Structures are given as C-alpha cells and as structure tokens.
C-alpha cells in the first residue's frame, strides 16, 4: 500500500515534468500577428484552451493511474 502511494507520487511528478514540457513545446512558440491590436488576446485565448485540454488529459491519466495502482485498496 505504502509503496503504491510512493509510486503514485512519483507518477504525478513525472506527469508534471512531461506535461510541463508539452506546455512549453506547444504554447511557447505560439503567436498570432494578423489581427492587429487584438492578436495577444486571441493568442492568449487559444493558449488557455490548449492548457485546459492538457490539464483535462493530465487528470484523466491520473484517474486511470489511480485506479490501476490502488485497484485492490479502492474496493471500499
């Protein structure tokens, strides 16, 4: 059980590192120029959407991992 919790912590940490890398790669170079003064608002809106999608994917993976690691313990 205790090993499972440490494993889950390590998995969360790994997901943060990988997810962060994906954010930098996907959002870092992203920019829009052709909409005049509003380009930064549109670019920010798209960045927010991508970030939210990444967070949702992160939570889904974490839920699957939780069910896999704690499948015995979660039969409450």
């Amino acid at each position: 059980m205790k090993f499972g919790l440490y494993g889950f912590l390590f998995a969360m940490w790994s997901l943060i590192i990988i997810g962060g890398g994906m954010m930098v790669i996907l959002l870092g170079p992203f920019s829009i120029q052709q909409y005049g003064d509003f380009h930064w608002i549109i670019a920010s809106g798209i960045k927010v959407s991508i970030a939210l999608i990444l967070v949702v994917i992160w939570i889904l993976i974490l839920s699957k991992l939780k069910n896999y690691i704690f499948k015995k313990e979660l039969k409450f």
Partner: protein
Amino acid sequence: MIDLIIPAIISCILAFSVVYFTTPPLIKILVKKNYTVKDMNKKQDVMVARPGGISIILAIIVSEIILYSFFQLNEIIAIIITTTAAFAIGYVDDRKVMGGWFKPVTLAVAALPIIFLGTYDSNLAFPLFGDVQIPLLYLGLIIFMIPITGNTINSIDVLNGVASGFMVIASFTLSICLFILGNYEIAIVSLPLGFVSLAFYKYHKIPSKIFPGDSGALAFGAMYGTIAIVGSVEIIAAIALLPAVINSFLFLSSVKRVVEHRQIKGKPVEHTDDFKLKATTDKKAPVTLVRLILAGGPLTEKQVGFVIFKLGIFSGMLAIITAFMMGVSL
C-alpha cells in the same frame, strides 16, 4: 551577504518566538471562552481549543513587517495582505457555518493583491524545457492558486499535528528550492512560514492542545501559495505539496463536486475497539489519503501522521530534484 543573514535570523527568531509564547495564553483564553471542539479521534471526551490561527497570523505579520523594514519589497506586502485575508476568511468559517462556495470564492478575491501589486512574473518555468509566457492564463493561475493551496492544507488538517507538521516539511523544502535557484530575498521571506509552522507543531502535535482551525490552515496555505507565485516557483511548490494534492484529488474524484467535509454522508474512517483508525467499507464515503493509508490495516493516529510526513519528505526530495533540474536545459 550579511545584509541578508541578519534580517533572516531576526525574522526567523521572531516568527518562532511569537507563536511559541503567545499560543499558551491563547489556549487559556479560548478554553475560558469555551471556544473548544471535541477531538474526534480520542476515546475520552477531549475538548481542544480552536482556532490557533490567531497566534499563527500574528507571528507571520510581525516577522514579515520586520523583513519589509529591511527589504521594502512589494512581494512582502502581497504576502501580508493575502495571508491576513485568508486568515479572516478562515476565522469567519471557524465561527459560522458557511456554504461550500464561501472559501474558494473569497480566497480567489484574497489573491487579487498579488495582481494589483504586480508581484508576479507571467513566465511559467518548467524543469528541463524552460519558460512559457502566458500573460492572460497566468492571471487565472493566480486566482486559482490561492484557493487551491488554502483548501489543500485545510483538507489534510484531519489528525493531530498533521497540517502544521506537513507545513514544516513543505515550507522548508520551498525555502531550500528558492536558495538553490538563487532567489535569496524571497527565500528569506519564505523562512518565517517554516518557523511559524514548527513552533505551532509543538502545541498541535499529538495530543493536540490547540487546533489551527480554518483560519490557521488557510493562512498557512495562502502564504505558501503567495510565496510560490512571487518567487516564481509554482511548479516546485505544487510538487512539494503533492501528498496534500493527492488527498484533494482522491476526495474530488470520488465525490465529484466541490463540497464541505461536513456535508459528506459516509464516513471514510472509523475506530477499532482499541481506538485505532480503520478504513470503512462504506461505498458512499469519499476516498481520502488517510483512508488509503489505512487500507492496509488499522493504525494509530500517530502512525498515520508519520506516514503522511514520510510522504511529505519524499515529495520534498522530488521538489529539490526539480529545483536542480530547473538549471538544466534539453
């Protein structure tokens, strides 16, 4: 360097001493006024003083004002205002039963001084991969971060000494990471949080003489979150807090909505005849970190606390590794 060492020593001594010396009289006053709650994990009817947040916030304000007299940083003002606001929000919740919306919404408002004082950097730094600039998204992150850290610390305040003991580990980890990253001024500004938590742990550890209450737990969490933002160590701070994050994640993914603990019907944990803690088989009860720890069999309150502390130390080590990884670029 001596310019940094003297304020650091003075503020740390003050932070520790104010809690150490004001908490015993505070306990007497609270007991006299009948501001006590039953310790649910004791066999006998033990009444414990609450809230200890009063001595916690006093120590934070005194030590941070002293630091401001040396550094004149807007970051310190942001920490004082946001933490005091979080304390006030928690104090209202300690005195009156508020709805589930109250703490998240008001804590989001408490985060606004960080934005108005401009004490943030909208570049979010990740290990190995570098920074990403997210100006609009970062404002949302600030608004969300303070309610999350506040409620996350509040959610692990379920056993004697756990919230303050865990805070000692997480906050000193954050200070070490800030030193590793060379952010010395904010590292020194963060040190009082660890010393306040350490002094409070003396009275909060099993058997508790005082509980921090929502006012203390939210003050701890809000100060931690504010330091993470003004020190640009949001990711590292989240990693150091992972055991408490797991607790909130397990709770929310089993309950599937934002709800106060008192509104939950099923009990995740019960007591054995010798008053050890034991996981229930109630399917309606939320999954929590304590319930998962107890899935292997009954443990005493002290043993569960130590398992949480070991998890805190493990995630603290991951946070320090992450701080070193910040200097490495792929």
